[in-house]
């Protein structure tokens, strides 16, 4: 028999695992079976990816927003850097597409 606390922990990990699996399978299936058009497919993949990150933070890294202030600011910093990297890349690549395939 497991102690209740241990059982609780195991349940958390299993739930996280199932959610992570689901969030990976949905985009793959979307692409493979071509359920949706091009843009909705890309949007689904993007949304699933963001949810995936949140699931990992919540169930595997045990991050709670209510916890220490330090962690909150680290999260803000992380978001800032990722915003710079992803936003910058999108800007650069869209700008390039615009100039290459332009009107």
């Amino acid at each position, binding site marked *: 028999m497991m102690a209740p606390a241990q059982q609780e922990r195991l349940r958390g990990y299993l739930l996280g695992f199932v959610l992570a699996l689901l969030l990976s399978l949905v985009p793959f299936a979307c692409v493979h079976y071509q359920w949706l058009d091009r843009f909705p497919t890309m949007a689904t993949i993007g949304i699933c990816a963001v949810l995936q990150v949140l699931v990992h933070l919540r169930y595997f890294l045990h991050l709670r927003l209510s916890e220490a202030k330090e962690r909150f600011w680290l999260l803000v910093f992380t978001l800032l*850097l*990722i915003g*710079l990297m992803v936003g*910058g*890349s999108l800007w*650069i*690549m869209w*700008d390039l597409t615009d*100039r290459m395939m332009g009107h």
Partner: protein
Amino acid sequence: MTGRLSWEALPTYGAIVTFAAVLVLSLIVMTVAYLTWTGKWGYLWREWLTSLSHKRIGIMYIIIAFVMMLRALLEAMLMRAQQAVALNNPGFVDAEHFHQLFSTHGTVMIFFVLMPFITGLINKVLPLQIGARDMAFPWLNAVSLWLTASGAGLVIMSLLLGRFSTGGWSGYPPYTGIDFSPGTGVDYWIWALALSSISTTLSGINFLVTITKRRCPGMGWMRLPLFVWTTACSSILIIFAFPSLSVATLLLALDRTLDMHFFTNDLGGNMMHYVNLFWLWGHPEVYILILPAFGVFSEVIATFSSKTLFGYRSLVYATVVITLLSFTVWLHHFFTMGSSASVNAFFGIMTMVIAVPTGVKIYDWIFTLYRGRIRFSVPMLYALAFIMTFVLGGVSGVLLAIPPFDYVVHNSAFLVAHFHNMLIPGTLFGMMAGYTYWFPKATGFRLDEYWGRLGFYGWLVGFYLAFMPLYLLGLMGMPRRLQQYDQPEWQPLLIVAGAGALIILLGALCQLIQLIVSIRRRRTLADRTGDPWDARTLEWTIASPPPEWNFSVIPNVDERDPFAAEKGKGHAYPLPARKDYQDIELPRNNGLPFVLGVLSFWLGFALVWHLWWLAILTLLGSAGCLARRSFQRDSEKRISAENLYQYDRKRHQQLQKLAGHHALNEGFRWENKVD
């Protein structure tokens, strides 16, 4: 069964290559024979290969860096010699080999010289500076080491079987795609990089957690030694930037092996996205390399000026600002891609902005020197040369930040001169300074001063001779990576550059002699006090080399430069009471990280040569290693409080004896003579 492997893979396509392969092979055979002859295998396994101690791991990283540096230096020498003679003739290195040379030179210098050197130094010093007993994750630390070693092994393997990439150290597709580079070269490059980048990411996490969680009581953020600050910022950059490199190279690998189309022109791929992802890592990487060197210089300049750092807070803020800004400039590596004016202008301006915090640092160091009692020891010589020479490189960087200028000199020798001007006087001089400065802490004896100076002058003079001509050549229109040329007016400058490379090589030779001489004279050079430079931070309070637990009692810090302050107040070496000692636990040695390293080497090898059965076996083996580790229970050993207490008492008595009639608690300042 044998994949792409066949007799053709043997290095028989050129005399120089065959010679190099034979040389490497005989060095390996000689090392194995020596170890067997002296019966050192057991010692090596027990004390080094299985060690989880940050001190041992640090030393092994630096050994990797030096071995790989020897190779990359010889390659540089070959290229310089080739360019010095190859006016209107093919010289002695054919084009294919020349392309391999510049690709390996860059890859090795960045990933297997500078990165291991930095990681090694951080490993060695970081826990000591913050009053900790080890890294936060010692086992993970050993895994990082052996992944780096296996990546370096793959690069060496490319000399013995098959060829290395000819696509330069940045490996741009479509040239590195399967259509234009069908051989194994690019695969060697990809998998060596993949191993190194995973290793570095793990190290970065380890360093950052160690700094946030393992600081001794009283060591607040604004009391951290500057080397710790720069390590923290460098780790943040590693954690965010390195995944981008891993993704870029893995996508390229998918393109090459599984016929995908991320970076091809057809089927919706875009090769410029590789360039974007690569430099999204590549620019932060520049600061990953330079920030720890800034940290070393801050420690060295403060110690050898016998002063506290000028503008500590501004140095910290400058470091943090650089960390953030380094994620806003990456496009300046590909201005010529053809972005619109607003994109180019934004990244150009940000590049100029990032020079400001760097300038702040330069002034802080100069003001630290001002009215200090300067001792011109080898680390200080490197620091002074750095300040002068790095500013030159920085100014040429600001020039390159102007897009129209960049269009003119892009891909020319000017660029080669610029980044060598940043990385040699910046990172490499920083690492040499740190190596000399902390050598006594690692081994218990100082490095010989005379040969160290000769080595320093070799590097300095050689650097100027080798790279200043390249600025001119770049402005004269000489492209980089030229195997031969037909412009007679370039040749004199290229001969000067070749002479410079030779002098650098002589400098490196002096450093090798320095090491041998120092080991032979280790009794006269011995550091008995643990504080050979009259230094300021915690690592110098303990013995050289430190005991395996570092601090018998975790120190309590109440200001910046704690050791200097305690020496000033006259209680440098307090002996805690018996009741302050507690039993401690240290990680036991463990062989699994080494096994993981060996397995990942063969995994890389299998992926290069398409030996799928071997790839599956090694992957399963690696997973098995990880599973095995999580079932290991008895992974720590205990050291009793009594042992620690007796050790401290003995050391205290020795120190007392060394101090003689001087007051021990004011330190050994009187013993520090200027050589």
